[in-house]
Each structure stands twice: as structure tokens, then as C-alpha cells.
């Protein structure tokens, strides 16, 4: 599934089992596909501030942004 370079990451075996079970139930082709999907989704929180409407609304309410 990975077209380019890949890196290995070690994760706790018990956590991996839990992840694998969820990936199966959720219908992902592989556990790796599920992990990549989750990580990419989480990375957006850190890389794309514009998507954070919760913060924007809070800051407007408190008078810190217009």
C-alpha cells in the first residue's frame, strides 16, 4: 500500500492488538492502512489551524479575536 519510502515505528504489542481489532471491524484492508488514516487525521489538528472552529468561536466570545 505504501508507494514511497517507509519508516518502521515500534508500538506496544497490546496496543497493536487493540488497533488491529478495530481496523478489522472498521473494514480497513490492513492494520497499517488504519494507522496511517488515524495519524493523518490527527496531524491535521497540528498542521492546519484554520480548521479549528472551536477555538475560533471561543476566542471571539472572549473578545480575543474579531
Amino acid at each position, binding site marked *: 500500500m505504501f508507494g514511497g519510502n517507509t519508516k518502521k515505528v515500534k508500538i506496544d504489542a497490546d496496543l497493536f492488538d487493540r488497533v488491529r481489532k478495530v481496523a478489522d471491524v472498521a473494514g480497513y484492508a490492513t492494520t497499517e492502512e488504519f494507522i496511517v488514516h488515524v495519524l493523518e487525521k490527527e496531524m491535521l489538528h*497540528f*498542521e492546519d489551524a484554520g480548521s479549528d472552529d472551536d*477555538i475560533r468561536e471561543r476566542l471571539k466570545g472572549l473578545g480575543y*479575536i474579531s
Partner: protein
Amino acid sequence: MLKALKKMFAADRGEAIVVVSGLPRSGTSMMMRMLEAGGVAILSDGEREADVDNPKGYYELERIKNLEKETDKSYLQEGRGKAVKAISFLIKDLPDDNDYKVIFMRRDLDEVLASQQKMIDRLDQGDTEAEKEAMREAFRNDIVRTRLLCKGRDNTDLIEVHYKATVEDPAATASTVNRFLGGHLDEAKMREAVEASLYRNRAS
């Protein structure tokens, strides 16, 4: 190292703008008071008046609140060599044509949220538990995002200052901040500017 080299070859942009940043209620106004006392000129319009949440004043520049939407940000050049307050959410919108020295205020997230909650309650906009948890997560992300952003920008240096540590040992913070800004500030006056009595929103 690479950052320093790039700065050497950058166009002359004058003195850096000192940006006091952090989440709302993380001690940014306290740091502004310290800087002012220490001899740093402040870029502020005084439009937002002191109130029960910030009895010594907000030290804000009203226009910067619109930084996310505004296209002409040249007014910020007036802040070169001065200190301006900008919450962490707005760091991403600082224009590239200035250098920045960011003093990033950190405070226990529970204390930040408790302090914000008091403001919200006064505004009659109480949060549900789910909303509180969502905000905790959103602010945690905001902190990480800001740190990543500052580290990745050639024109930005960042120092983190902890609110509690500053209240407990203002002399140490005054010394650290003074070193970060070049060593020309009056540390004794910075120290005196910290009023421990303001440390009232501590979450129990």
C-alpha cells in the same frame, strides 16, 4: 545554526518585534507588565479597558485581533523593537516581513480553562462538560501547533515562560527574559511588576 545563517542574509528588517503570546488567561498581560516595567516600549492602544478579569489592563492592540482576516499587516512594523500581545492562535498570521521574538506563556491547562470559565460565566455563556473537554483538546493542539510553527520559521525565536514559576520566582523569569531580549532590561523593576495576588484563578 541554519536559522542563524538565514537571518544573517535576510534583508534588514530592523529590530525584532517582541510578541507576548500564549492561550488567553495564560499570563500574557502579566508578561506585558514585566516588559513595560523593564523598559520595553509597548505597542498597545488601550482600547480594551481594565476589568475584573484583568484589573491592571489588557495591554492589547485592538487591530491585531483581526490579523487572521486582514491583508494589510504593515502596521505591525510599528512594533519593531516594541512588545505586542498576540494570542497563540494568531501566531500563524504574523507576516514574514518582520523578525519576531516570541515569549510564549505557558500555564497549567486546567488553570487556563478555569480562568476562562470565570470570564464565560460573567458573559453568561456557560460550557457543557462536553464543550469543556473539546476546548481542552483544542487548546492542547493549539499549543503544539504554535511551537511547531515558531520552530519552523526562520524569522522567529521562541522562549517559553511558565506562569506559575514566574509568580513563584519572578527574579528568575526576569533574568531569563532579559537574556532572551539582549540583556538591556531592568530586571529589578520586572520582578516588582509581578503581583502574586493576581494568581487567583488557580484550579483546586
